[in-house]
């Protein structure tokens, strides 16, 4: 009898959920929230409010930023709970641009499996957590990627004393990989293409994965090359590990925001672009004050200084302070400074700029004109 009651309730719950699904099935996809003015007062108000994440972040006075806490160089926490790293610095860049204060960030460490849900549910304002820009993520995850901050590729790490020199050597091996990542998908396609039989050993977090790799639970660990370099650099003796030369995927990494809020997207995007633009102009955290008086009208415009024929301040209408680039560069730095500080040749990671150099140096970073 009691089971009957519970069964009934279960059924009711299932029906309620199904009903919640069915009634709106038609609307899905056809009406991306922000674009069409929705009928009905309550919903309209809610969506207006929704569109205004920029205002909400301002009134909150703090940016909630989803980050990684496990990869040295990109997102890592020390003993005192301080976050540091390349992706973490981009949270600070956005906070500096939007709020004028690079420290007004609440960091929310997230696992690979948690990150998209946190973004979709509006738990975080921006996700800056070495996330690869892909079509399906842009399409069905409800995410919108801004300008790429780091061009990366997937690599394989093995123990230095193992016999593996190329991926083709890895016949019949077990490969550790983080689940819910593009790496997991690339691994499957690369090894299938090379007819390499392997056993995937997916884990949810780097911590358990690392322990398993340590104990020879798997022969290789595949991830973005920069992440592997970060993990390797963090070890007491990095020489025990070796990263194979082959890069077998394209991994453009960058911050992303939730779909359907164009104002917020623009603000975040241009905060990121500003770091690249600053490096192009040679504006650094050290010389930014002098550069305000630069003879170059482009630089003066970029830094929000009065200039041009009518001596006015240029405001592109991004909803940001005209001088936001000054806050970004003075408080965090330009792209080159951020790169060198966290992952560059002088850090334990020791990554050369490579693809991440400016376009003028043969790299891929190219800032759209600021005018």
């Amino acid at each position, binding site marked *: 009898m009691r089971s009957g009651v519970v069964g009934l309730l279960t059924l009711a719950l299932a029906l309620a959920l199904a009903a919640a699904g069915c009634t709106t099935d038609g609307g899905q996809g056809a009406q991306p929230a922000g674009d069409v003015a929705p009928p009905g007062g309550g919903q309209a108000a809610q969506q207006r409010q929704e569109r205004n994440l920029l205002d909400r972040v301002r009134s909150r006075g703090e940016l909630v930023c989803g980050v990684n806490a496990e990869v040295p160089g990109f997102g890592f926490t020390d003993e005192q709970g301080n976050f540091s790293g390349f992706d973490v610095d981009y949270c600070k860049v956005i906070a500096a641009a939007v709020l004028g204060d690079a420290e007004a960030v609440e960091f929310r460490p997230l696992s690979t499996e948690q990150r998209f849900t946190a973004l979709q549910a509006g738990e975080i304002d921006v996700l800056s957590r070495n996330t690869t820009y892909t079509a399906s993520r842009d399409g069905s995850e409800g995410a919108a990627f801004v300008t790429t901050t780091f061009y990366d590729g997937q690599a394989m790490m093995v123990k230095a004393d193992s016999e593996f020199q190329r991926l083709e050597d890895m016949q019949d091996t077990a490969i550790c990989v983080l689940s819910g990542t593009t790496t997991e998908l690339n691994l499957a396609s690369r090894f299938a293409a090379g007819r390499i039989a392997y056993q995937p050993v*997916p884990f949810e977090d780097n911590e358990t994965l690392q322990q398993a790799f340590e104990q020879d639970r798997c022969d290789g660990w595949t991830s973005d090359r920069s992440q592997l370099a970060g993990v390797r650099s963090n070890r007491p003796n990095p020489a025990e590990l070796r990263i194979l030369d082959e890069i077998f995927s394209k991994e453009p990494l960058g911050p992303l925001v939730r779909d359907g809020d164009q104002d917020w997207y623009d603000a975040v995007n241009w905060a990121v672009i500003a770091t690249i633009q600053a490096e192009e102009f040679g504006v650094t955290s050290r010389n930014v004050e002098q550069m305000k008086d630069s003879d170059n009208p482009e630089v003066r415009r970029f830094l929000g200084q009065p200039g041009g024929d009518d001596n006015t301040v240029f405001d592109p209408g991004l909803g940001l302070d005209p001088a936001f680039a000054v806050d970004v560069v003075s408080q965090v730095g330009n792209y080159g400074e951020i790169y060198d500080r966290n992952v560059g040749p002088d850090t334990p990671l020791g990554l050369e700029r490579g693809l991440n150099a400016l376009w003028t140096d043969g790299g891929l970073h190219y800032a759209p004109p600021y005018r």
Partner: protein
Amino acid sequence: MLRAAFQVAFVVLVGALLWYLLGNLRTNLRVSGLPTGFDYLDRPAGVDIRDSPFRPSQPIRDAIVVGLVNTVRGSVVGIALATVLGILVGVARLSTNWLVRKGAAVYVETLRNVPVLVTIIFMYTAVVLRLPPISRASEWLGLIVFSNRGLVVPWGVAGTGARAFTGVVGGAFALAVIVGLWRSRRFDETGEPHHRVLWGGAVLVIVTAAGYVAFSRPVTLTLPTREGRIVQGGIQLGPEYAALLIGLVLYTASHIAEIVRGSILAVPKGQTEAANALALSGFQRLRFVVLPQALRIMLPPLANQYLNLTKNSSLAVAVGYFELTRITGQIIANANPAPQSIAILMLLYLALSLLISLVANIVNRSLALETR
């Protein structure tokens, strides 16, 4: 009248709250551009599931089924092992042997008071992963290969006629039960020794053997052999599964042991004394007098432990065994909506719990009837 009004108001209030929450859910899903229905279950999952023939091109609903099967696999095996170990330790706690008694007490008091999650993680990172790596795997008598990539044991490989042979084994089992029942009735009517187990076992063995010969070796045994980093043949128990199972069994058995001990102590003392008066041996006393009565007392709390074990199998997320919770997490991570996925997860656990309660209810009732 007032009563009716109150009830209506109460229901309306609860309904309105649910309506409000679900409405928000719907709006939020739409705003995020996420599917609001369950159609996403037909999309390809796109990932591998370790230790399973699942392919990335199969739909998500199949992945959930794999997760459910793995959860059941962990729970059923865990329940069986925990019951055996629990009864052993519970009886040991009442042993006349001081060392056995104290040893059992130490086991119970230690494992019972440490979180099962800690035990599972300990088993994984500090025990199973520390087994020899595959390059130095232990091989015993050519039968068992074990390393920190898993335990490989001999296993049958289905040949032609395997399905028919399975049917024969099932039939043999049924026949054995029937023969056993017949012997019991015979014993009740005439009092001649029943030897149920002997008769039933003989029937089972003879019929199975006949079937095996008739279908010309429908099942052959493969032995695990190691070649470099891989092990051919046999069946593999993954280290993550092993860690989960050991953790769950050790923890649950410590609770079951206490239930068994309590139930045995709860059997009236007169029963034991009467058994002694009949000059039954210690084993006979336990087997025919004390345990059957204790069983009735221990069943309800035992069912509760089975429920707990099933629910605790979700802690496998911590060691990466691909059961229901773990696979749901993976699905959510791959471009699929969390609310629906978690709702499905909860409904499936609810269904499992109800199933266990139902079985426990039936068993309980049938045992209760037997006494009258």
